[in-house]
C-alpha cells in the first residue's frame, strides 16, 4: 500500500497543533516512525487508521482519499492496529479475545476465524495459555495478545505503536522477525522509541518533531546524517561540552563517551555511525 499524506494538520483545542502541515509519502514495506514524545506520531497513526479526522489536509492510501467515509470503512477491512496502551478485556481468554477481534474485522466464517486465532497464538507463543483468562497473564503475554489481534484478518496495512515495549529480549526479536516477514508484501508502520528495532527491520524511516516532518527517506540516509560526526572519546573525567552524548562506558581511567559533534575532544577516534547517532545528529540540528 502506498500512503500519501498531503498538508495534514491536526489541532486539539487548547493545545499546540499535534500535526502541523505534514506532507510525506510512505512507500510499501516496513516504515519506522520515530520522534520524541509529543511529536505527533500517535496522532498520525490514529488518522491513518481512521480513528480521528484531520483538521485540514488529506491522506490517500493507494489513491483512496480517507476523508470519504466509504474509503475509511474499506481501509478498516484491511487494517491491523496495535495501540500503545491497550488492556484487552481481561475476563476473556486470548482465544476468545481474538475471536472477538475477528468478528470486529468482519471475518464471518467461524471456522476461518478459529483457524487464524490458533495460528496467531502459536506465532506469538501463547498456545499454552490460550484458554486462560487474560487477567492472569503477565504484562508481556498481554502485549503478545495485542500483537496477535493486530495480525487478525491478514491485514494489508499494519500500524503498530510501541509493539515491543514490555517484551523480553527473546520475544522482541521474535516479533521483530515476524514484522520484517510481514513487511515483505504489505505496509507496516512501526512507531517506537527503540531505534534498534527500526534499524533492524525498517528500510524506510520518517522522523517527526513538533508535528512536522524532520526526515523522510531510507534508514541509511538517516544514519548518514552522523557520518563524520560520530566519535569515541578517550577516558575522560567530565563529559565533553558541545556534544550529544550517545552513551558512556565507565573505565578505571575515566569514562569513555560515544558522542556526535563537530568539535570532538583531543584524542577522540571517529567511528562508523548507527541509527541512534543519525537520529541524535538530526535532533541536534533543529
Amino acid at each position, binding site marked *: 500500500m502506498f500512503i500519501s499524506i498531503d498538508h495534514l494538520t491536526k489541532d486539539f483545542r487548547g493545545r499546540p497543533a499535534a500535526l502541523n502541515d505534514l506532507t510525506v509519502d510512505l512507500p510499501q514495506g516496513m516504515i519506522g516512525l520515530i520522534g520524541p514524545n509529543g511529536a505527533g506520531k500517535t496522532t498520525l497513526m490514529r488518522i491513518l487508521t481512521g480513528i480521528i479526522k484531520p483538521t485540514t489536509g488529506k491522506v490517500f492510501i493507494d489513491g483512496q482519499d480517507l476523508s470519504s467515509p466509504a474509503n475509511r470503512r474499506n481501509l478498516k477491512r484491511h487494517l491491523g492496529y496495535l495501540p500503545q496502551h491497550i488492556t484487552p478485556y481481561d475476563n476473556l481468554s486470548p482465544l476468545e479475545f481474538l475471536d472477538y477481534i475477528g468478528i470486529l474485522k468482519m471475518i464471518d466464517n467461524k471456522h476461518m476465524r478459529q483457524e487464524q486465532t490458533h495460528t496467531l497464538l502459536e506465532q506469538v507463543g501463547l498456545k499454552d495459555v490460550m484458554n486462560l483468562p487474560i487477567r*492472569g*497473564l*503477565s*504484562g508481556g503475554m*498481554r502485549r503478545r495478545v495485542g500483537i496477535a489481534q493486530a495480525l487478525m484478518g491478514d491485514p494489508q496495512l499494519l500500524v503498530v505503536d510501541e509493539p515491543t515495549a514490555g517484551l523480553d529480549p527473546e520475544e522482541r526479536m521474535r516479533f521483530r522477525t515476524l514484522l520484517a516477514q510481514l513487511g515483505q508484501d504489505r505496509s507496516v508502520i512501526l512507531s517506537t522509541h527503540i531505534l534498534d528495532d527500526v534499524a533492524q527491520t525498517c528500510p524506510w524511516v520518517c522522523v517527526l518533531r513538533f508535528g512536522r516532518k524532520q526526515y523522510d527517506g531510507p534508514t541509511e540516509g538517516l544514519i548518514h546524517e552522523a557520518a563524520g560526526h560520530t566519535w569515541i572519546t578517550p577516558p575522560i573525567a567530565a563529559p565533553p561540552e558541545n556534544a550529544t552524548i550517545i552513551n558512556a562506558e565507565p573505565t578505571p581511567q575515566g569514562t569513555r563517551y560515544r558522542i556526535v559533534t563537530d568539535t570532538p575532544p583531543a584524542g577522540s577516534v571517529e567511528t562508523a555511525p548507527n541509527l541512534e547517532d543519525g537520529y541524535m545528529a538530526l535532533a541536534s540540528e533543529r
Partner: protein
Amino acid sequence: MAFVGIQLKRLYRLVLLPFILTAGILFVGFLLEGIWSPGRIRPLMMVLTQVPVIAAGLSTAFVLNGDPIIELAESTPTGWRKVQVTRMLIITGAFLTAVGLLFIGLHMMRLWPRDMGWVSIISPVGSIFIVNCLVFLIAVLTTSMPTSSLAPIAIWLFLCFVWDPYITDPVRQRLIPLFIAAAGAIFGWNMCGDAERNVVKVAAL
C-alpha cells in the same frame, strides 16, 4: 498531618460534595417553607434526606478503588491500609458533618421527616456510618469499583425498605446495624493490612 493534607487536596471536590448537597436541600426546604405546609414538605424531605446517604456510599466506593499506585504505597513505610483508611475517614467525616448540619437546619425548620427530637440525628449519621463501613469492607474484599458501587445501593435499599420501616425506635434502629458495620470495618481493616494480598489482587503478575 501532611499526609492527611495531601489526601484532602486529592479529594477536595468529593469533600465539598456533601456540603453542596446539604446547602441544596436546605435551600429547597427554605424555599418551600413559605409555600407549602410542613405536612406536604416532609414527604419530599424524606426522599431528599436519603440523597447524602447514597452519595456517601458511592463516593466512598469511588475513592477506595482504582488507585494505580497500590504497589508503590506498599513499598513505603506508610502502607496501603493507612492510605485507604485515611481516605475513608475523610469522606465519612465530610458526609457526617454535612448531614449533621442538614439535620440541624431541617430540625430547626421543623421539616425533618419523622422528627423525634435531637435523638433523630442518629438516623442519618448512623446510615452514613453503616454504609461507609460496609463499603470499605466490600472494597477491600473485592477491589472492584463496580461491586463497591453496587454495595451502597444494596445496603441503602435494605435499610430504607426492610429495616427502618420495622424497627422504629431510632436508637435500636441504628445501633444494631452499626455494630455489624463496625465489625465489618474492623475485619476489612485487618484484611487491608496484608500487603501481599493487596498487591497480588491488583498488580499484573
